[in-house]
């Protein structure tokens, strides 16, 4: 199979959807500059640079979505979304419900986060849990180039606002991406490795760390199953619960800060709905409750390590 980076895969997904549907357009700070190839193919009206103003970028997307377009907006880095919370949460997320179903908001936001570029806590801040806890939104955060493409396509086709997080640490790593039409459904997790003793549940860059941890655990005779959530809202309860009911043990892993992270939701689901099967405490391995530091070694230390995952999995035994 051909390989490409996640960045390329995401762009390919966007370009294919723009080809398929004239209602799709994309804009953001530098979107046309960086996407000059898209400008070439789709013209300057469908690929636009904007002023430096996240609020109006998101608001424009919401207003356009409610009246027939399908905007894909690039908000650059996740912490900049703080300037667009009103438009994403109060408008895109709620106005369908508030209006009694009169409008829908088919839009996609892209933003980057996570360790990798040592850019510090105002560029790197994993806030996916906020959007999981906001009504009317969907949230995805892929870990492979194929999923970057397949989820981007699904996100664009979805009639609801989809918040698409790109893990900085994954953007430039190449991986296999199927040729032709390739769509990954929102709401469906992937079992990346099968196992029978413990379930490691993760998403984005820490999926690979879970896989590495599973390798280490295998050497110690522990068979770990690894689940890549991919979609954080809706979350694939079925896959999570089926696995934990089988293994009886769960470790949830993510880079976002521990307290109030998506891992809490996963742990809570497991503790309620797979309780009978649980043989051990539900463990969480996550970033500390601190902003990610810029200093490279510290930034790396922010991310759950293979050792910490192995240790947590061992504690469940």
């Amino acid at each position, binding site marked *: 199979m051909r390989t490409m980076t996640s960045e390329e895969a995401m762009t390919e997904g966007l370009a294919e959807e723009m080809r398929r549907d004239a209602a799709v357009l994309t804009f953001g700070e530098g979107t046309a500059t960086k996407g000059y190839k898209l400008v070439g193919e789709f013209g300057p009206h469908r690929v636009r640079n904007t002023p430096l103003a996240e*609020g109006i970028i998101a608001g424009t997307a919401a207003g356009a979505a409610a009246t027939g377009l399908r905007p894909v907006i690039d908000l650059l880095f996740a912490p900049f979304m703080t300037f667009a919370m009103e438009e994403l949460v*109060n*408008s895109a997320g709620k106005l369908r419900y508030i209006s009694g179903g*009169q409008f829908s908001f088919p839009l996609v936001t892209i933003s980057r986060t996570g360790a990798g570029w040592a850019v510090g806590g105002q560029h790197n801040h994993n806030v996916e849990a906020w959007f999981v806890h906001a009504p009317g939104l969907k949230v995805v955060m892929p870990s492979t180039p194929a999923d970057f493409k397949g989820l981007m396509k699904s996100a664009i086709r979805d009639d609801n606002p989809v918040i698409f997080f790109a893990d900085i640490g994954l953007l430039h790593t190449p991986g296999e991406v199927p040729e032709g039409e390739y769509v990954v459904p929102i709401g469906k997790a992937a079992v990346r490795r099968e196992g029978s003793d413990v379930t490691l549940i993760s998403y984005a860059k820490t999926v690979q760390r879970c896989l590495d941890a599973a390798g280490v655990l295998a050497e110690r005779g522990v068979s770990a199953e690894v689940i890549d959530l991919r979609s954080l809202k809706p979350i694939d309860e079925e896959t999570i619960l089926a696995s934990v009911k089988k293994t009886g043990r769960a470790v949830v892993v993510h880079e976002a800060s521990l307290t109030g992270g998506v891992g809490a939701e996963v742990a809570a689901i497991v503790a309620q709905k797979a309780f009978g099967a649980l043989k051990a405490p539900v463990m969480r391995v996550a970033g500390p409750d601190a902003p990610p530091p810029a200093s490279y070694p510290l930034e790396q230390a922010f991310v759950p390590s293979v050792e910490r995952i192995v240790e947590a999995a061992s504690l469940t035994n």
Partner: protein
Amino acid sequence: MTTMELAVDRSVTEALESMLLIRTFEEKSAALQAAGQSPTMCTSVGQEASAVGVIRALGANDLILTNHRSAGHLLARGADPGKIMAEIQGKATGYCGGKSGSLHISAKELGVVLTSTIVGGELSLVTGVGLSLQMSGTDGIAAVFFGDGAATEGIFHESVNLATVWNLPILYVCENNQWQAFVHRKETMLTDHISEWAKGYGIESRTVDGNDVEAVYAAAREAVEYIRKTGKPYFLETYTYRLRGHMEPDDQAYVDKNELASWKTKDPIGAYEAKLLDRGAVTRDELDAMRERATQTVERAAKFAAESPYPSFDQLTADVYA
């Protein structure tokens, strides 16, 4: 009387009737609130000329965005008073099935797309509506109503600037009613006119006496024509005054008595009635008949709302996702 005069004549009385309907509707809503028969709502008493003058200048395919103080805009656009009243009361028969309540009523069927009670929300959304219109290639325009308070939100700056840079077909209607909830406009800006701010962006702009329905209508007509011709946005400030409190009930204890009294003499309805009587365009009897019709309409609306059921409990989780 020539046909032309007749047309003007009808338009004139329609504008007055529209204003009377709004006033009657809102005073009834407030009375119901005071009587414990309705939740709270904001009224636009004193600002009817702004709503009616602008909305009558719009075409049937033009789109409207409004805010928390929207009953006037909706009624001027021909909304069903019963469905508004029902919505205010959270009834299933309201425009939004009771989920909006008074604060974020939209009515797609009337082209009132998107209403937000987040002050400034309408300004963030209108650029997207304008973009849709621009991309669709029609000559439709989007009119957005917002207050002087909304103009102090950062999103005002972002919205007007983007609309200007992208040439979006938007009519910005800033209803400068001198109040931002419990704060007087003068405490929040040095300028008297929001149109002064608009100038910096390079958008065509103008302030009009918001209590003179004919002046508002004329200005809005000009603005709408400009937008249709050029595809560019236009900024219209209607300078007016909020005669009642911010939200029912409100004793207006914080309002300067002299200021309020002076603006009461400029009540857009009283002023217009006097003008029309003076011109001989209406008679006292016709006026009485109009008021009576408004009262009847509003009483029917109140009855409809009162008799309407609340939404069923399955509505609690309906329409979250498309």
